[in-house]
């Protein structure tokens, strides 16, 4: 028995020695696992993917385009424009007799791209600006951050509306205006984070080893910033969509014949008195579902990536 044990132990020792390199859990792997455990977040990713897919594949099933007016329905939208499969208006028609299904697809595309493009602009400008201010430090940092303070003191919505009125209402203008406003918070967050990473011992260790400053930024600082940037960006997207929608709801956002969730909801709300509640409910359902999804994903990402919870 004892001998057998000895042999076994020897075998085990050999096995351990020959064992291949153990796969490590990087912080990203860890984060992914934590994110996957968050049911609301994973479900949200699924639902959101469906919505995005819908906005791409949806048009192939549409009977009407978003510009066609169904003359047969016009004038009697409340009775004939209801959602039905028979006449091809799956979501019904709007008050002008246009197919709401196609309009919602169009609105979804625009709203989502406003969200993503706006957030991307904000993330890129904000991260670069904040990282430079934080890493360079000193006077440069002071100067750059005072500019941010000044810009922040101006009420954003006011500027946005002003810009749209002055420079005309185009989607491009909307992208630029929203993106320009949203990078301010981003730059502050990134600057703070850069400051704290810059003083971490591993950055000092890299300097002591003789790593160049540019390599320190790309190899050590940026990868450690990424978590915060991802979390904040995921919360920026719904923020952008909300701003765009509220502006469109006020009638200042995207222009006919183009449309967005905000504009569709606005149209639907105006005609709710005429028993055409579907005109409000379909765009609203997409809007609310997507926002919920974005916030759940944002929450999930924060829980997964935030080092404080560890």
């Amino acid at each position, binding site marked *: 028995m004892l001998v057998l044990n000895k042999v076994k132990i020897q075998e085990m020792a050999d096995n351990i020695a020959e064992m291949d390199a153990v796969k490590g859990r990087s912080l990203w792997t860890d984060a992914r696992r934590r994110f996957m455990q968050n049911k609301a977040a994973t479900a949200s990713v699924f639902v959101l993917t469906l919505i995005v897919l819908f906005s791409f594949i949806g048009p192939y099933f549409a009977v009407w385009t978003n510009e066609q007016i169904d003359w047969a329905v016009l004038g009697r939208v409340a009775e004939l424009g209801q959602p039905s499969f028979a006449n091809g208006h799956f979501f019904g028609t709007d008050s002008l007799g246009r197919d709401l299904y196609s309009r919602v697809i169009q609105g979804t595309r625009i709203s989502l791209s406003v969200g993503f493009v706006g957030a991307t602009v904000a993330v890129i400008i904000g991260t670069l600006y904040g990282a430079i201010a934080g890493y360079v430090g000193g006077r440069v940092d002071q100067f750059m951050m005072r500019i941010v303070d000044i810009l922040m003191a101006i009420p954003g919505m006011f500027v946005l509306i002003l810009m749209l009125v002055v420079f005309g209402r185009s989607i491009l203008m909307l992208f630029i205006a929203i993106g320009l406003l949203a990078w301010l918070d981003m730059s502050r967050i990134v600057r703070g984070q850069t400051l704290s990473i810059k003083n971490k011992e591993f950055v000092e260790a890299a300097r002591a080893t*003789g790593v160049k400053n540019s390599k320190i930024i790309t190899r050590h600082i940026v990868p450690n910033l990424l978590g915060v940037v991802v979390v904040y960006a995921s919360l920026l997207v719904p923020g952008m969509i909300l701003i765009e929608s509220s502006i469109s709801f006020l009638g200042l956002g995207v222009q006919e014949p183009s449309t967005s969730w905000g504009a569709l909801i606005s149209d639907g709300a105006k005609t709710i008195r005429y028993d055409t509640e579907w005109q409000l409910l379909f765009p609203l359902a997409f809007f609310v579902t997507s926002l919920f999804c974005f916030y759940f994903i944002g929450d999930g990402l924060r829980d997964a990536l935030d080092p404080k919870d560890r």
Partner: protein
Amino acid sequence: MSNETIMQVDNLKVYFRVKNPEAMPWTRPDVLKAVDGVSFKLKAGETLGIVGESGCGKSTLARGIIRLIEAEEGQVLWLGQDLLKLSNNEMRSRRQEIQMIFQDPLASLDPRMNIGEIIAEPIKTHHPKTPKAEVKQMVEDVMVRVGLLPNLVNRYPHEFSGGQCQRIGIARALILKPKLIVCDEPVSALDVSIQAQVVNLLKELQDEMGLALIFIAHDLSIVKHISTRIMVLYLGNMMELADSADLYDRPRHPYTQALISAVPIPDPLIEKNKELILIEGDLPSAINPPSGCVFRTRCPKAQDICASDKPVFEDTGKGHMVACHFHD
């Protein structure tokens, strides 16, 4: 082991400009004298221990020597070359000969990199053309040497204990076979049982590779164990510098005497009867240090002359250097 001096530090001063946040923008910042005129020599294969309370400037001294912080004035001769006068590029290439180990083992490892990448970083920095297989072999060898299983290369720092993280830090410092390692309180963040392991590892490596060490600690008992010579630092000034045994058995400076009396002696009989010299008060501010001898505000032996004249740091025989008017 050769007896050549590899590093000679002369009158090194590191000052910080600190601004009172409530002060007006045009007021001149205060000068904080973190290190105020430190000189010493270091021979190849020797260990210099540096002790002092926290806030006495010992970490700043270490960083000043290897230019992680720029010094105000002074000289750091490394193999005959003044490090403080080198351009940034020249300094960077010198860095492969001088490495550093840090106080917080986990914080000194990039959490987004795996162990293999961390340990290999010095090679990648100084010899970027080394073939991958060779790098891998070097990493594995050094891991085995510091007592880590080489199959852990793909793991990440947060999967290790403090002691293991410090071994990783040591491996990173060793991989380019440096001549000097500056250890900034390498064990003070570790459990007592692990401290001894890490100190012993450093000692073994030193004997094997002929490394010189600058070993910083706030605890005299650890430093005594590893050092050839010990420097006692107080408020950026050298108080005493002597051979390890000499300093421990015959401390001549009142501050050193107090520090040593605070080290517990394992024998309860002696421990009970020994005289404990207490130092009263707090460390004075380095922005506004006491005149004359910096230790006079807390020194049990202080006289009038201590306030007016700064004691000279002088040899009191057999290289036992002391800065005190009334040394024993």
